[in-house]
């Protein structure tokens, strides 16, 4: 090629420049020069790989997933990059390319941008790059990535320095969001969109619902047992996204991560909402297959110490009294059981599992206060030392319903009895202990939500965390806060946390226990339920209603509830009055009993169980040692409760019904036979006479009873036998109580004339006699007769 050709090739720019100079009319004073140099483009290799080996080949970035360690400068390492220089045998200096494109030794802002260190002693052409603890320490940190150009300067010769570099992306660790019960991944829709679109996070919502809420899947719509459902947090569940999948997506450049870029990452940050926080803790702290892959856990409204509301849910299934009680929310239209069924049908709270036999969904058992699962989590060594924790605690104890702050589960899911009876509560301790203003998020008490080493209160209810900008702000800050306390910092504070009325809670709630890997039980301490329960040797049941038949007998009314300790460690006398519901309530029995509070501190609540007695008379009146109530109908259903004085938490128990059947003196009978009775020759057949007789005095012992057998004739009845016998009276018998008797071995036989005759010697004169029992009582009481039975002589 000629010089002329060369000029045409290389000279366009020069010509243009010259033309511009000519146009400007300028004549250059200096002489132009031509410089010729030779540059060799060296064959140097610089590879940046994932130290863990999880990513094969070159990587494009690294997540800032390390955590501050236990001492100054100590780091709990997450992902690291292995930088390898090849093709050089010269001295090297490790550094970075600054904003002006120049090499600088070290990293941009020291620890804020990561550190170099040798992968092993003597390594000259290799370095490990450890990213900073957080994505950035300045600015709003809303970017998704921040480039750092790691570099190495090769001192090839005095005149030749070669700098090899690679720009890597610093990114925030993946954020894995875990929903609570009765939900699915859509819980996080708004939250995730905000974090992904506006705050530079790559977030993933776990779905442990097993499908739709009413799918009937074994996961119970997000209510699965913690021993099973934690796996959704871990990942590896086909078709679901958990921590493992989030990390994998970072490593493979998935479209939902940093698309097309392979990001080295070892740990994710986790947000747990309500039960999702417990699932996350179980995975992190208890699961044998924990993958050491969580850096931070932030909980939102998580019941770390359980929620007494779930105890109530469990109790409703196992306790007919609670199940049948009115529910405040729908009272007097729906019972507690009906309310929970209705709420379940609407999809708000899944209560029962729909299996046969039905049971409470496992998650509710896990979250019962004092449950064994929570005991395991919160025992002597809660939290991991290499994971940082924080809690966001809601304090709005009213959930909006149709835009009105209305619902507080502590009040609304409390069993009561009767709108017209001043909403007598079966369990008044619920609101007293757990739902004062600002003391809960309407579902979980604040004392249960709190991880004390890093916690913040927010004025939101249990359903409102996810759409709150302030919550999102706090989470975003904590996710980039290298001072978020590790588990070892939380532990002593958590264990030392003072829980108000702890003893009262221990006296009021029953936690679930572990049977194998399943949580079973949970509910309420039975004695803590304010109620009257009936028992007695002659008490039967009529469709679930206690029933006392006409023979009478002593009924024990067990009165339960809780009382506040007046003086610690000292027995105190409680006086309870058993009453019958009427226009003017009638006193039946007044009982004073000294009860000891044990170790319960002063001012806190401890359970008591005190018995009173009551009985009936022949007119089906209800009576006790200290009074009675009368009706003239015959059979009656009485409503009975108790009053207690000096306890402002409640003054009277709910009413509990008991059915008194109409009085009838039983007919005589032959055991194991049916009417008509056939009697043979002497001694004949042994009859038994039963009935009820009014006690003439209290205190037990025996009482003489006179009963007779008569043959019913048209004009004059015939006395077949007259017997006086002693009836044992229990110690709690009181005067006037109708007490049962059963006297055997009354004989009727076929006499020599072939007629029915009694043991007293009188003959009926009939081969077929109609016989009845007649009861003699002391003056002041009636003399009842039974119906007739037919007695025939044997052929």
């Amino acid at each position, binding site marked *: 090629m000629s010089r002329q050709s060369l000029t045409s090739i290389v000279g366009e720019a020069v010509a243009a420049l010259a033309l511009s100079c000519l146009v400007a009319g300028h004549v*250059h004073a200096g002489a*132009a020069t*031509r410089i010729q140099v*030779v*540059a060799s483009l060296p*064959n140097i290799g610089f590879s940046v790989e994932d130290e863990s080996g999880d990513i094969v080949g070159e990587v494009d970035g690294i997540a800032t997933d390390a955590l501050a360690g236990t001492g100054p400068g100590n780091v709990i390492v997450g992902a690291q990059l292995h930088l390898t220089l090849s093709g050089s045998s010269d001295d090297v200096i490790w550094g970075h390319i600054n904003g002006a494109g120049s090499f600088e030794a070290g990293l941009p802002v020291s620890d804020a941008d990561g550190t170099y260190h040798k992968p092993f002693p003597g390594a000259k052409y290799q370095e490990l790059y450890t990213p900073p603890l957080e994505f950035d320490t300045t600015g709003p940190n809303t970017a998704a990535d921040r480039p750092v150009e790691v570099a190495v300067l090769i001192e090839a010769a005095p005149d030749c320095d*070669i700098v090899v570099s690679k720009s890597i992306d610093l990114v925030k660790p993946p954020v894995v969001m875990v929903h609570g019960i009765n939900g699915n991944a859509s819980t996080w829709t708004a939250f995730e969109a905000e974090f992904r679109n506006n705050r530079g996070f790559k977030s993933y919502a776990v779905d442990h619902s097993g499908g739709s809420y009413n799918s009937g899947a074994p996961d119970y719509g997000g209510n699965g047992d913690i021993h099973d459902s934690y796996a959704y947090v871990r990942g590896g569940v086909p078709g679901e996204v958990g921590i493992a999948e989030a990390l994998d997506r970072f490593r493979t450049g998935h479209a939902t991560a940093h698309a097309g870029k392979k990001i080295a990452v070892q740990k994710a940050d986790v947000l747990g909402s309500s039960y999702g926080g417990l699932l996350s803790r179980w995975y992190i702290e208890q699961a044998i297959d924990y993958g050491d892959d969580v850096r931070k856990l932030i909980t939102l409204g998580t019941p770390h110490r359980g929620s007494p509301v779930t105890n109530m849910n469990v109790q409703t299934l196992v306790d007919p009294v609670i199940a049948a009680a009115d529910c405040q929310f729908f009272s007097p239209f729906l019972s507690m059981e009906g309310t929970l069924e209705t709420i379940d049908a609407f999809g708000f709270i899944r209560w029962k599992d729909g299996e046969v036999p039905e049971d409470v969904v496992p998650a509710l058992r896990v979250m019962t206060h004092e449950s064994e699962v929570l005991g395991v989590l919160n025992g002597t060594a809660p939290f991991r030392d290499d994971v940082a924790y924080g809690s966001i605690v809601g304090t709005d104890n009213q959930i909006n319903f149709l835009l009105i702050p209305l619902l507080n589960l502590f009040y609304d899911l409390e069993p009561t009895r009767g709108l017209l009876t001043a909403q007598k509560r079966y369990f008044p301790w619920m609101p007293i202990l757990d739902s004062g203003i600002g003391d809960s998020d309407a579902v979980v008490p604040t004392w249960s939500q709190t991880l004390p080493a890093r916690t913040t209160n927010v004025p939101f209810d249990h359903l409102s965390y996810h759409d709150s900008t302030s919550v999102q702000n706090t989470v975003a800050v904590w996710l980039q806060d290298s001072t978020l306390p590790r588990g070892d910092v939380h532990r002593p504070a958590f264990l030392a946390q003072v829980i108000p009325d702890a003893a009262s809670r221990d006296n009021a709630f029953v936690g679930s226990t572990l049977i194998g890997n399943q949580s079973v039980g949970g509910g309420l301490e039975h004695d803590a339920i304010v109620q009257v329960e009936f028992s007695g040797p002659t008490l039967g049941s009529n469709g679930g209603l206690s029933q006392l038949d006409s023979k009478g007998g002593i009924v024990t009314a067990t009165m339960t509830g809780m009382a506040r300790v007046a003086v610690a460690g000292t027995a105190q006398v409680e006086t309870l009055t058993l009453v019958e519901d009427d226009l003017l309530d009638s006193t039946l029995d007044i009982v004073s009993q000294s009860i000891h509070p044990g170790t319960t501190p002063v001012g806190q609540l401890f359970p008591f169980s005190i018995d009173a007695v009551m009985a009936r008379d022949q007119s089906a009146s209800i009576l006790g040692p200290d009074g009675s109530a009368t009706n003239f109908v015959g059979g009656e259903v009485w409503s009975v409760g108790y009053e207690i004085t000096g306890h402002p938490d409640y003054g009277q128990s709910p009413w509990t019904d008991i059915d008194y059947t109409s009085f009838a003196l039983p007919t005589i009978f032959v055991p194991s036979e049916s009417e008509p009775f056939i009697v043979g020759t002497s001694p004949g057949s042994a009859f038994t006479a039963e009935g009820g007789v009014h006690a003439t005095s209290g205190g037990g012992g025996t009482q003489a009873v006179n009963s007779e057998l008569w043959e019913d004739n048209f004009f004059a009845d015939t006395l077949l036998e007259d017997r006086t016998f002693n009836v044992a009276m229990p110690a709690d018998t009181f005067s006037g109580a109708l007490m049962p008797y059963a006297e055997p071995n009354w004989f009727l036989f076929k006499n020599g004339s072939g007629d029915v005759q009694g043991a007293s010697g009188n003959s009926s004169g009939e081969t077929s006699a109609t016989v009845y029992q007649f009861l003699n009582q002391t003056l002041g009481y009636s003399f009842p007769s039974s119906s007739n039975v037919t007695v025939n002589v044997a052929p």
Partner: protein
Amino acid sequence: MSVVCANTYAGAAAAYDVESDSSPNAIYVLLRNLNPSVDFVSITVGDELPAFVPIASATLIPASVAAGESDLAAIEFDVSAAATLGQTGDIQVTLGGLQNGNPIDVILRIPLEVVASAAAAQGEIGVGVPAPDPGGADTDGDGVTDALEVAFGSDPMNANSVPGKLAFAVVPGLGAVAGIMLLALVLMSGWVLSQRQHRLGAS
């Protein structure tokens, strides 16, 4: 990945001379691509020009530098009338390529100093203005086309003679003495070359 190769060219100089108010100045860089798997396909002039260089442009000739081959970069620039004697600065150009999908940048810096009188041609001076051979003829097979060898002062017929590298050949049969004599001759030639560049301030 970027590679910054400072002063890697043979006969490295602390600075090349330019005169104030001169235009158009030219820099020809013979690029010897030692990478077996990288094609350099772009060249750009860095944003931070010396204060005395108001304008500069760069072109790859032909359009790329293929792996294992040699081609030419042409840079043209002006020196402003306001330039003062003794002013120094680098013109930086960046060569861009891809290796296994990863970007590779090679950054060249050509140091300049404003002097009262600059030579019309400096550096690796051969015969004529550098120009690539369109046919790519490389008679001695040393990786540098004949035209460029001529322009940069090496022997296109000798594979041991490439720009930036002085010829050194062990002639069979001459033995050690002849070899030492030839070495001395080469060293003398190198001393002459270095003296020529001493004026440029070679370090």
